[in-house]
C-alpha cells in the first residue's frame, strides 16, 4: 500500500508539472504574451514596461520556472479587470462552485444508485426500460440546453424556482439538476450493469440458497460487492462536475469560478482564465489521485 501510494503520488506530481507546461505554452502560442495579458489598446511603452516588470524578455525556460515558482506559492498574477490577485478572486468564487458540485453529486448518488439497483433487480420489466431510457436521454442531452428547458418550465411558466443567481436553496435546485444529468445517466448504467454481474455470481446463488431474505441478498451481498466500481466512477464524475459547471454557471448566472473564467475571456482578462484553468486541472488530477487511492483501500485485490 505504501509503495503504491508513493508511486501514484509521484505520477500525479509529474502530471501536474506537465499540465503547467501545457498551460504556460498556450499563453505563448498566440505570439506576444504581453499583448494577451494586457487587454485593450495600450501604448508600446506600457507593453515594454510590462515585459520588463514580468521578465518577458528573459529566455523562455527562465520564464517558465518563474511562472511555476509563482504558481507554487499561490501567486497566479493580477486580474486587470478587478485589479485584484487572481488567487483572491478564485477563493472568493470557489465556495459557490463547490456548493453546486456538491448538490449535483448528492442528486447523482440519491437518484442514480437506487435507480440502477432497481433496474437490475427488475431487469427486462417496464421499470428497467424507464431507467434505461432516462439514462439514455441524460447521456445525450447537453447540460446547457437541459438547464434552459428547466428554466422555461419551472421558472418562466410555473414560477417555482428562480431562473438565475445564488439566493438560497431554491436557486440551487435547477442548476444542480442540469449539472448532474450526465453523471446520473453514467452512474445509473454502471450501477445496473455492476449489479447484474454480481447478481449472476455463485455467492449470490449461495446466499439465496441459504434462505436469506431478498433484502439481505441485495443490500448485504450484492450492492456491497457492486459498490467498488460505482464509487470509482462517482469520484471521476466529481472531477467532471467541476468542469461541467463552466457551462451551467453561465446559464444560471451562478457566481462560481466557471462563470468567472468565461466572463474573463470576454473581458480579455487572460490572467484570470489561466488561473482558473490551472487551478481546475490540478484539482482534477488530485481528485483522480484520491479516487485511485480510495479504490486501493476498498479493493484488497488491487496492489502494485
Amino acid at each position, binding site marked *: 500500500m505504501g509503495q503504491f501510494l508513493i508511486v501514484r503520488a509521484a505520477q500525479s506530481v509529474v502530471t501536474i508539472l506537465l499540465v503547467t507546461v501545457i498551460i504556460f505554452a498556450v499563453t505563448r502560442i498566440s505570439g506576444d504574451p504581453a499583448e494577451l495579458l494586457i487587454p485593450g489598446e495600450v501604448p508600446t511603452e506600457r507593453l515594454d514596461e510590462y515585459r520588463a516588470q514580468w521578465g518577458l524578455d528573459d529566455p523562455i525556460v527562465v520564464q517558465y520556472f518563474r511562472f511555476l515558482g509563482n504558481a507554487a506559492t499561490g501567486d497566479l498574477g493580477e486580474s486587470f479587470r478587478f485589479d485584484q490577485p487572481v488567487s483572491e478572486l478564485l477563493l472568493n468564487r470557489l465556495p459557490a462552485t463547490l456548493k453546486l458540485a456538491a448538490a449535483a453529486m448528492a442528486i447523482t448518488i440519491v437518484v442514480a444508485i437506487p435507480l440502477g439497483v432497481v433496474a437490475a433487480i427488475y431487469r427486462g420489466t417496464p421499470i428497467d426500460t424507464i431507467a434505461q431510457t432516462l439514462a439514455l436521454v441524460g447521456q445525450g442531452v447537453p447540460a446547457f440546453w437541459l438547464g434552459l428547458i428547466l428554466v422555461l418550465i419551472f421558472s418562466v411558466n410555473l414560477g417555482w424556482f428562480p431562473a438565475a443567481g445564488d439566493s438560497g436553496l431554491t436557486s440551487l435546485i435547477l442548476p444542480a439538476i442540469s449539472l448532474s444529468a450526465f453523471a446520473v445517466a453514467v452512474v445509473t448504467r454502471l450501477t445496473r450493469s455492476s449489479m447484474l454481474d454480481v447478481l449472476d455470481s455463485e455467492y449470490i446463488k449461495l446466499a439465496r440458497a441459504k434462505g436469506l431474505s431478498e433484502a439481505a441478498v441485495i443490500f448485504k451481498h450484492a450492492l456491497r460487492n457492486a459498490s467498488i466500481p460505482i464509487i470509482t466512477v462517482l469520484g471521476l464524475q466529481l472531477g467532471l462536475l467541476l468542469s461541467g459547471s463552466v457551462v451551467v454557471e453561465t446559464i444560471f448566472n451562478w457566481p462560481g469560478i466557471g462563470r468567472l473564467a468565461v466572463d*474573463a475571456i470576454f473581458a480579455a482578462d487572460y490572467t484570470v*482564465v489561466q488561473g482558473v484553468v490551472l487551478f481546475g486541472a490540478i484539482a482534477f488530477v488530485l481528485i483522480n489521485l484520491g479516487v485511485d487511492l480510495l479504490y486501493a483501500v476498498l479493493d484488497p485485490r488491487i496492489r502494485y
Partner: protein
Amino acid sequence: MAVTTGEREQVVPAELGRKKRRFRPRLIPHVPIAILVIVVAVAILAPLLAPHDPARGTLVDSLLPPAWDADGTIEYPLGTDANGRDVLSRLIYGTRISAIVVVFGVILTGLIGTAVGLLAGYFGGVWDAILMRLVDTILSIPPVLLALAIIGALGASLQNVLLVIVITAWVGYARIIRAEALRLRNADHVLLARVGGCGWFRILRVHIFPNVVNTLVVYATLTIATVVIYEASLSFLGLGVRPPDASWGGMISEGRGHMNTAWWLTVIPGIALLLLCVSANLLGDWLRDRLDPRLRNVGGS
C-alpha cells in the same frame, strides 16, 4: 449483415418470450442509423433543402411561431428568429457544423490516435513511455478548461474549437488502441508473422489492425455525442462558431433572450441535438454489444 443479426437476436433475449420478440419490428439499430443518415444527407444537401437564406431575414417576419401555431405560416415551418431568419433553414445549415465536428473530432482524431496507439503499443520502450505520459497529461485536463485556455488566447472561431477537439480527442483512441496492440503483440499469429520475416508495417497493417477495428468502430461511435455536445456548448457560450453562421448551440444561445415569448428558438435546435446524440449513443451501445463487449464500461460520451 441482416441475416446474421437476425439469427443473433433470437439468442440474446433469453428471458423475454422469443415468439413475442420475433414479431416486433426492431427499432435498434434501424432508427438511429436512419437518423444519422438523414443528418449526413441534410448536411451535404443543405443549400438544396433550405427554403430560405439562413443568414438573412426580413424584420417584418421576425419571431413568427412554427406553422402549427395559429399565428404561424407555412412559409416558415419552424418559425423565425428575432432577425426574421427562417429557423428551419438555420437548423439545416447547422447540421453542417455538427458534421464538420464529427469529421474532425471522430474521424481525423481516430486516425491520429490509432496510429499513435498502434506504434506505441507494438514497439513499447521509451517512445511508448513518453507518449503515454503525454496522453495521461492531456486526459488529466478537463477538455472544457483546455478550451477556455486555448480559445481565450486565440479567440473564438470554429477552427479553434476544432483545434481543441483534435488536441483532446486523439488521446482516448491512443490509449485504447495501445492496450489492444500491447495485448496482440505477443499473440501467436503475430509472432509467427515475425518469424516468417514480416516487416513491422505489414504486421501492424495486416495482423494487428484488423483485430482492433471493432474496438475502434465502437469507441468512435460512442464519442460522436461527446464532440457534438462539446462544440454546441462552446458555441452556446459564444466561444465557438460566430454569428451570423448557424450552429445549433449558437441558435440556442440567440433564442435564450426570447425564451418568454418564443420558446421554439431554444427548444427546436435542442431537440435536433438531443436526437443526434441519443441516436449516436444507441448505435454505439448496439455496436458494442455486438462487436466488443469488453468496452462495456467506456460508456457513451
